[in-house]
């Protein structure tokens, strides 16, 4: 039997506001425990939440960027449960009336366009953190993270494979980064993802029993966990068994999922409208103001790169997948206006140096201007493409510009005909057999002669000129 995979994702994005969602405390990561807290963070008696307007505005931006309908009247609700990292005994979230609903994003998997629906976007507060010490009979609570604003983005069950899930996540991630409303750091937990996944026989309309996957803290882990879960569920179904509806934790070390049984089961959160917060009323003017602040988004940029710069679709996709990478490209383009050559270099040499992590480009030592200068040197024949690669590696390591490195190391290409001709003659004289063979028709030996020349000149010889000189001399 063939199965179809059905996946829905819930993404929690920490919004990078300066202060928390309901008080003035800082959201900075990594402060000493419980220093970014006040009586509100601590859930003291009598304190009241006051909404940070920026959180609403950031959520509106995301809603607009993902084609959602903004609810002009939305409100906060309390999600009630007991846990020591939740000081009030309830989380302020949104339930019946979230800030936005009914949106979509487009993804691209193996050259196929696909539209993934977004069910809803809502605002909520983060919880604190428990720190367990195995050697002591108690646990510690750090409430610095309590009240850090979160945006939850819930997809429709439109995703049909782990690859699509990964593409969808990357699209949300890129959009958040383009909007500059979330730093998207999965390891620090500022971008988190839970997945609902089920299988159904192809052709069947009804969904199969789903499991919920948690604890996947990188794009790679999300894809691997989903792949694992597809196999696990398929094996169960093929054996005639039944999938149990449960929450599973991904174990990235063992590459398996484990049941969370008992911990999270059958919670009744008793949602009700939070009486401490008045409904949020969003006027059209406000929406328009937010729309006007939207930057160019990944899809728009991709289309522009294709249409205005004439880049192939693949290049445009890679260049725009991260805001930092696209910004870098556009800045370098100002200094080196040959889009395709620049794109090639960035997708190969630069991407290799930043280990395939496009957003890491923001901390790389080579400025876009310096990259432009390097490529210009190749075009002018100052250095060869091959030398340029070693120069680039050194630029990445030291931050020096290409010109300095080339000069310091004497890497300027030898393009002086007289100078090269002497060496060419020397090489031919030293290799009479090969010269004879070449004249006899073994033109492949050109490689050998140019190689000799490169060796003698430490690669600095202008390869085009070298070819010309050898064919002239050997054909005499």
């Amino acid at each position, binding site marked *: 039997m063939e199965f179809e995979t059905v996946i829905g994702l819930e993404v929690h994005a920490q919004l990078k506001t300066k202060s928390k969602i309901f008080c003035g405390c800082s959201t900075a990561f990594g402060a000493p425990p419980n220093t970014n807290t006040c*009586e509100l963070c601590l859930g*003291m008696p009598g304190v*009241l939440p006051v909404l940070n307007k920026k959180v609403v505005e950031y959520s509106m931006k995301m809603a607009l960027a993902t084609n959602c309908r903004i609810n002009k009247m939305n409100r906060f609700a309390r999600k009630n449960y007991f846990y020591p990292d939740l000081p009030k005994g309830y989380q302020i979230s949104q339930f019946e009336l979230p800030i936005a609903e009914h949106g979509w994003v487009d993804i691209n998997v193996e050259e196929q366009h696909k539209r993934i629906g977004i069910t809803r976007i809502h605002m909520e507060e983060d919880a604190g953190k428990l720190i367990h010490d195995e050697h002591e009979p108690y646990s510690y609570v750090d409430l610095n993270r309590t009240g850090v604003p979160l945006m939850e983005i819930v997809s429709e069950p439109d995703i049909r494979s782990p690859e699509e899930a990964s593409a969808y996540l990357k699209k949300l991630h890129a959009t958040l980064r383009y909007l500059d409303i979330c730093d998207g750091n999965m390891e620090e937990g500022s971008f988190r993802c839970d997945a609902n996944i089920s299988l159904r026989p192809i052709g069947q309309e009804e969904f199969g029993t789903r499991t919920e996957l948690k604890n996947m803290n990188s794009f790679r882990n999300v894809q691997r966990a989903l792949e694992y879960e597809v196999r696990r569920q398929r094996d169960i179904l093929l054996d005639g068994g039944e999938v149990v509806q449960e929450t599973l934790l991904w174990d990235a070390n063992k590459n398996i999922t484990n049941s969370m049984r008992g911990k999270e089961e059958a919670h009744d959160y008793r949602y009700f409208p939070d009486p401490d917060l008045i409904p949020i009323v969003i006027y059209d003017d406000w929406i328009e103001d937010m729309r006007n602040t939207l930057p160019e988004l990944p899809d728009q940029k991709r289309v522009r790169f294709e249409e205005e710069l004439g880049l192939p679709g693949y290049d445009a996709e890679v260049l725009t997948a991260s805001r930092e990478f696209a910004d870098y490209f556009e800045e370098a383009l100002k200094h080196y206006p040959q889009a395709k050559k620049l794109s090639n270099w960035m997708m190969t040499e630069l991407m290799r140096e930043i280990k395939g992590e496009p957003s890491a480009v923001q901390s790389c030592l080579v400025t876009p201007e310096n990259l432009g200068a390097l490529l210009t040197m190749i075009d002018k024949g100052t250095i060869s493409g091959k030398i340029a690669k070693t120069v680039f590696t050194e630029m990445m390591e030291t931050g020096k510009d290409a010109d300095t490195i080339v000069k310091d190391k004497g890497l300027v290409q030898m393009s002086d005909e007289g100078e090269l001709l002497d060496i060419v003659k020397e090489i031919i004289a030293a290799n009479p057999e090969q010269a004879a063979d070449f004249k006899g028709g073994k033109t492949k030996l050109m490689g050998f002669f140019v190689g000799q020349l490169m060796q003698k000149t430490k690669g600095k010889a202008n390869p085009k000129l070298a070819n010309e000189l050898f064919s002239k001399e050997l054909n005499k």
Partner: protein
Amino acid sequence: MELHKLTIHELRDLLKKREVSAVDATRKVLERIDSVDDTIQAFITVDHNKALKQAEEADKLLQSGEGGELCGVPLSIKDVLCTKGIRTTCGSRILETFVPPYDATVVDKLNKSGAVTVGKVAMDEFAMGSTSENCAYRIPKNPWNPEYISGGSSGGSAASVAADECIASLGTDTGGSIRQPASHCGVVGMKPTYGRVSRYGLVAFASSLDQIGPITKDVRDCALLMNVISGYDPKDSTSVKRDVPDYSAALSKGLKGLKIGIPKEYFIQGLDAEVEKAVFNGIDILKEAGAETVEISLPHNDYCVAVYYMIAPAEASSNLARYDGVKYGYRDSSGESLQEMYRNTRSKGFGDEVKRRIVIGTYALSSGYYDAYYKKASQVRTLITEDFSKAYEKCDVIVSPVTPTPAWPIGEKIDDPLSMYLSDILTISANLAGIPGMSVPCGFSSKGLPIGLQFQAAHFQEEKLITTAFNLEQHLDLSPKRPEGL
């Protein structure tokens, strides 16, 4: 001079003329507490040193001609309002050791006006109750007869004012908790419009119903306190941005043209004959003073108690979740697991009535029951609010008894929660609708217990309440004003 027996305005005049000092007045009040509180049991915490220090500061301000209306005036504060550095128990064991690191906004306003806080007064645990018998520490007695309840939940506030253990007090009202004890103790109490006074630092019972208000010896004092505590607070999203009028100016207005609505639903079966008589006597006096009366109807009034006992416990069940033994207050760590710690802490830390309401509220919000209970109650609440809107098209002020009966003996209803809940029937609707209500003394029962009259007005029409109440007070001129022989 018996300074503790004075009203705010009487004491203020003497203080401003420097005929007495704030320290004198505070000493007198503290002496009074020392001499009568063994009987009255109004105070959970009295801080002599802090009070005298505040008084000294007030005297400095008064000396230099500064200091507001309340400067140097000794007040008591219901133990549900957070006071920085002074323990705030909410009448509960679970907060026995809780000392807030912040002041409630109203407390801050009192401090800035130079008022002196003599102590924190008893109340039903987390303001849940109608008699203050649910206080974990002490049961405040009715100063007119200490065998009788003082009312609740602001029983300590009303008793301390009536027994001259303070000049005035702040209480809170979620379903009548200012008006009802004021009525039982023969003093004046006002529940302002929801949003008129900041709730920041008021330990929440039911957030959409709670409101802070004054309990005073006369109507003039009520206006004075309202001037100080009212106003928008950026720390409370439900407080309303609206100018605060000078409530004292409303005192000098007459009743000519004022329409008083008499709701037929309020004069119900079970209404005590003496209460009814005293209330109608009050109405006659208002008519003589120039007011007109008009019969009105509040058709959904029958549902008030049911709606209230869904919404208030539902909100409470969530508001009280924070008392879990983790961060502050009482913790029972005898168990082995986190779950046991929660269970033991909350089982031992909360009293029966609080637990009863947490269970009711949890049930009302449970999935599968939410629509039938909490949501339905919220919808009926809207209808109740609309009843009032329609009524105020016909009248300015609605008049009624505050409670169906005068105070009853301590212990009489404590094992009968339902009849206790029904005693709130005439005060609850103001909280559900968010409108202001006021209780003013209008007579005595044959047993010598005070009877109160309730006025309610449309949102933010507190001035009309003050005008009406002041006219009644002036024309009625009740005697004695306060219990004798204490």
